């Protein structure tokens, strides 16, 4: 049984979300990335090309993920819910639960090869590339919201405040919501 569609605006002209495919795409994205946000670019690519999610869905899921407790990586739970209700959220959960178990193998391997330069280089290359790709995705999300002075100002202010590490993320987001409500 399908869960009710939650968002009439979400683009789904390509048909409905295939749960198994979604799970495999989410698993692939998490398996070949590190960190809670590392899986964004790959999923963004795969879901948008299938018209299963919109730029807006990603931005919304990221916002919910930042506000809710737990690791930031839980944003994908929110995305899964937008796609397919609670079953979608649980598929996201399964997809992000499996890859971290490889730490058990990594730990074993690391103790054998930790001083091999190629291992260090590989990890560094992965991190650098995640950043490069992520910057492109952030740019796309921003252009979907629309470049205007207010948007850019809020974005720049959050960046500056975030870099100080003095203000909790939730406080930054609440302040931004207040700005949005006051200056309509």
């Amino acid at each position, binding site marked *: 049984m399908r869960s009710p569609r939650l*968002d009439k605006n979400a683009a789904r002209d390509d048909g409905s979300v295939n749960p198994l495919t979604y799970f495999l795409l989410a698993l*692939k994205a998490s398996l*070949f*990335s*590190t*960190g*809670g*946000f590392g899986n964004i670019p790959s999923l*963004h*690519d795969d879901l948008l090309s299938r018209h299963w999610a919109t730029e807006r869905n990603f931005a*919304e899921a*990221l*916002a919910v993920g930042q506000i*809710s*407790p737990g690791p930031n*990586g*839980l944003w994908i739970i929110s995305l899964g819910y937008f796609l397919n209700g609670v079953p979608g*959220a649980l598929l996201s959960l399964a997809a*992000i*639960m499996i*890859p*971290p178990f490889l*730490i*058990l193998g*990594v*730990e074993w391997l*690391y103790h054998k090869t930790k001083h091999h*330069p*190629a291992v260090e*280089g*590989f*990890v560094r*290359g*992965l*991190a*650098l590339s*995640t*950043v*490069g790709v992520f*910057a492109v995705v*952030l740019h796309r999300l*921003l252009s979907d*919201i629309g470049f205007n002075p207010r*948007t*850019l100002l*809020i*974005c*720049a202010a*959050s*960046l500056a405040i*975030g*870099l100080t*590490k003095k203000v*909790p*993320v939730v406080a930054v*987001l609440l302040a*931004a*919501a*207040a*700005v949005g409500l006051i200056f309509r």
Partner: protein
Amino acid sequence: MKSEGSQPRPLTRIFSVWFRLGIQSFGGGVATLALIRRAAVDNERWVTDLEFTNYWAICQIAPGINLFALTILLGRKTGGALGIFAALAGLLFPSITITILMTAAYAKIRHAPATQAALHGVLPATIGLGLVATIQIVRPLAVVAHKEGFDTLLISALALVGSGAAIAIWHLPVIVALIGSAVLCALHAWIRTLRGTTAP
């Protein structure tokens, strides 16, 4: 100095400690990591300070969410295979439930004018905070590259900009960009060492 972590802990204790961490961990990675460190090292004495630091370093190269990998290592240390599941269940049950409920609540009020107005503030802020995460990843890498010399700096810049260009301009699959950069940097680091040009 050895921690008392060698003997197994009761599963209910493992679960309840992680459950409390799961509820308290508002504000993302860094805040959560500090909470876990306090619980694991200071309060519960599962691991020593140094063991914790080593665990966290290894978790940086594990696929997926680093905090989950850390939870898995600490869970195994305290209670073996069952400890892993007690720790993960404790951490995830509250945070997953709250995330789903918040998303459902949001989906209900998504089209209200006030929600839309608030979103016009929240969404750009989310992107600003995403940029913060990006800069925090790049900074230590840039320091290492700078120390190693011009060739590492060049290769690092190539990996970063090249992956962005690969998906933005040439529309390559993201995975190709990731693996490509990783292999490039691995080869470079290897060749560097073979030539004996490693910086002191």
